[in-house]
């Protein structure tokens, strides 16, 4: 599981997750995700390269998203594959964090 960040125009922090967000993958990114969430105001979580998402992985996304939102920030989930999106929808998290497949739409969502 790889994680990298990129600062985009407009104060957006793009965090790119790459790999499997299973229990091991979630453990591998948790610390960095929480560090990023500690300072990001507009967080774009790029899921395009996430091949798998389990409930532990879901938690690794929800917890930092909650931290950003609790400070008045915004979060968007970007470009999950069909199965990953199905996990997001089954959990209901898509109703609380917007999911966008178009980068412009994702950026617009962050305000």
């Amino acid at each position: 599981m790889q994680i990298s960040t990129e600062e985009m125009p407009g104060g957006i922090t793009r965090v790119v997750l790459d790999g499997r967000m299973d229990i091991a993958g979630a453990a591998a990114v948790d610390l960095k995700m929480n560090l990023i969430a500690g300072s990001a105001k507009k967080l774009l979580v790029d899921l395009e390269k996430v091949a798998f998402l389990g409930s532990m992985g879901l938690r690794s996304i929800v917890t930092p998203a909650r931290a950003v939102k609790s400070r008045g920030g915004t979060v968007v989930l970007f470009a999950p594959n069909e199965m990953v999106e199905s996990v997001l929808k089954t959990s209901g998290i898509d109703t609380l964090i917007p999911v966008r497949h178009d980068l412009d739409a994702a950026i617009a969502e962050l305000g």
Partner: protein
Amino acid sequence: MRATLTLENGMTVPDQSLTNPDPAWPEPRLTLKSQLEDLTLVWPWVEAIADRYFVPADTQFAIQLCLEEALSNVIRHGYQGQPNQSVSVECAPAVENEGAGELVFIVEDHAPPFDPLASAVDAPAPATASLQEFPPGGQGIRLMRKFASRLAWQQLPNGNRLTLAFAIPQSLSPSVP
């Protein structure tokens, strides 16, 4: 060389590989210790099974998802963090007459009786108003209900048995030459 399944009309039969294992084939049973680290053994095991039975990528995703949930539930909640306990998962193909069938995974533990399917958590998504209220737990059962085609729980004399079945598309079934 891969053997084909022996089929009898209208009957569910075990794959011959289970009785005549080939080293290149995955073991039909995986036994884990009650520690979350051991879950890393599940992925390659399921991957080998998926290769063996021509399981489509989406179904493999569903199997990985459900087994991760089922096994981590046993380790975290069933055994409540006790080390040196064991949980096993066995894979058995169930093939029907027409060649369509399912892959059945049977998870067995020696933990106190707990029926995860009796949980109040059901398929619909939580009606929470905000992210702050999003439930930290309960997702596992909801995900298993969605991604497995069949789930069953049975209390054993000294533990639990959870059966998870996943449909294999007819065209990709191993019974098709």
